[in-house]
């Protein structure tokens, strides 16, 4: 490995190492702090390892910490986020796939205009849709519910997922669809039997993107869901800001890691497909 180590190369490695440390250091501090006792935190250096490893902060963060008036920890809100994220990711991805298929393969009068409108959807800032969205949710009677949040994320996310799938399907030769039509396949058969089986890479990209967007969202969560229905990001904020005497950094850190865990997990499982999927054409040769 060190056989070809030139000065230039050594510099590159050094720079990379520095970057890695820069990005990993906060994670390290969070992890070690979450396992320290409060005394340990006050006494020691931020970078030191815990004198005694303690899981108490984790238990408290999960089940007992106060997030406002309630003192049930993060657990309920973790499930809120799961209940919000999974359906929202699934629905927006499926809608995006079908939209992308229609826009790229079944040109109709105004299909380009439709796609442009969807594309504009990607550039609308969150803040712009807040008030109209609140009105719609109120009219539908799903304000302050997880269902309402799912709807918001599906509406907002479909613009992105459509773009992803459209850009993927545009690389599939039209002749494939023509051949299938001549073979007698209809709209859904072509989608399900010919395009879906080659869509793996773009599904991975879309799911990772949507999952992290929706799981990490704070603004929609804080505006459209409060109290019982709030997602974990909002709960984390409340937990950190609810001060009853001393600041429990260990609990805060544990709670933050709990909130970040699912996205970390998704990246670790599917991260390497992400880059591959972003650069993959649909059909090779």
């Amino acid at each position, binding site marked *: 490995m060190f056989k070809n180590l030139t000065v230039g190369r050594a510099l590159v490695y050094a720079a990379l190492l520095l970057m890695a440390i820069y990005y990993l250091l906060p994670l390290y501090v969070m992890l070690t702090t979450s396992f320290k006792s409060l005394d340990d935190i006050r006494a020691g250096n931020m970078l030191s390892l815990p004198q005694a490893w303690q899981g108490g902060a984790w238990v408290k963060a999960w089940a007992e910490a106060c997030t406002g008036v309630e003192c049930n920890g993060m657990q309920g809100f973790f499930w809120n986020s799961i209940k919000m994220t999974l359906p929202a990711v699934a629905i927006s991805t499926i809608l995006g796939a079908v939209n992308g298929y229609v826009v790229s393969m079944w040109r109709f009068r105004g299909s380009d205009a439709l796609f442009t409108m969807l594309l504009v959807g990607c550039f609308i800032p969150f803040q712009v849709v807040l008030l109209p969205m609140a009105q719609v949710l109120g009219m539908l009677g799903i304000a302050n519910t997880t269902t309402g949040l799912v709807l918001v994320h599906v509406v907002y996310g479909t613009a992105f997922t459509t773009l992803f799938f459209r850009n993927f399907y545009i690389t599939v030769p039209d002749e494939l669809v*023509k051949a299938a039509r*001549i073979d007698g396949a209809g709209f859904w058969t072509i989608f399900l039997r010919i395009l879906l089986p080659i869509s793996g890479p773009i599904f991975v990209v879309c799911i990772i993107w949507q999952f992290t967007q929706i799981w990490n969202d704070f603004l929609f969560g804080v505006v459209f869901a409060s109290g019982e229905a709030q997602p974990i990001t909002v709960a984390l904020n409340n937990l950190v800001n609810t001060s009853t005497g001393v600041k429990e950094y260990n609990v805060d850190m544990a709670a933050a890691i709990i909130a970040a865990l699912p996205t970390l997990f998704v990246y670790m499982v599917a991260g390497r497909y992400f880059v591959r999927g972003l650069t993959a054409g649909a059909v090779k*040769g």
Partner: protein
Amino acid sequence: MAALSINNVYKTYANGTDVLKGIDIAIEDGQFLILVGPSGCGKSTLLNMIAGLDDITSGDIEIGGKRVNDLSPKDRDIAMVFQSYALYPSMTVRQNISFGLEIRKVAQAEIDATVNRVAEMLQITHLLDRKPGQMSGGQRQRVAMGRALARNPSIFLFDEPLSNLDAKLRVEMRTEIKLMHQRLKSTIVYVTHDQIEAMTLGDKIAVMKDGIVQQFGSPQDIYDNPANLFVASFIGSPSMNFIPATVIQTGSDIGVKICDDNGCVVLPLPHDKTKLAQFVGQEVIFGIRPEQITDARTAHREGLPVMSCHIDVIEPTGPDTLVFVSLNNTKVCCRTHPTEAKRPGQSMELVFDVSKAVLFDPKTEARIV
């Protein structure tokens, strides 16, 4: 099998481009029709219209005597082979071939039998369990043909099926397609921009340009009697020579005046005198194919006009040597016997077989004689 007739078909795309401007073509059951023309002339568009993949703007298309304008592709009883082959990437060869049959709810036993029969015929049995990504271009091409054959349609449509193959394979597949046609006696519409494919495969050729059929006829007829300068230049390789020349009457003979460094001669034309007489004194384009200007040994006929010409370049091709001379300041290609061709810089006696020469109007480019 079925006859095909295309009557006055127009196609204007939504963005306003007129792609087809009144196409009229009719072929009989079992005939091999070639649509040939330069890229962008509307060949694929016309083929898509026949397939029903896109609507025609006006006109009629009939397959087997039945008007199919409003039928969807799957109800037209056609099969198509695409330039990119369009094999379903996630399916094996077997699944690719059986897909259309499955959708048409053919019994499984019959599907299996058909797949095996087609695979054997195209010698792709050993590939049946491969996916398209694991095959060479030539193999994919065969599978694409297999998929079309399995359906046993009344008309086969081919859109430049060989253009992605290398030269050697292209010639081989050309012969195989011809054999297949002779064996199955199927009606075929075949799009190509390659005039050699057009000449070798077709029973009938439609030469297209700018959405208009320039000429429709048998390959030999189109070669010998091109309707206009475009057709004459497009069909034949090396291309026909087009020499600007003046029509001149000497006594009862009417001919064209041809000059080179050594001097001028008048080549008398044996064509219809009353027609020729109208153009005396006028500038025309004298069209003559390379094999009609040759050495005395190859010409093998007495009484043809001869001219001594100064040779610019020679190109030996093996069976014959192309000799390039300059006539009326135009580069002219002559096909001569290799042993008879002289060297560049020398002069050579060239025999002009004017019986098949043609004349075009220099302005309209229409055939006049």
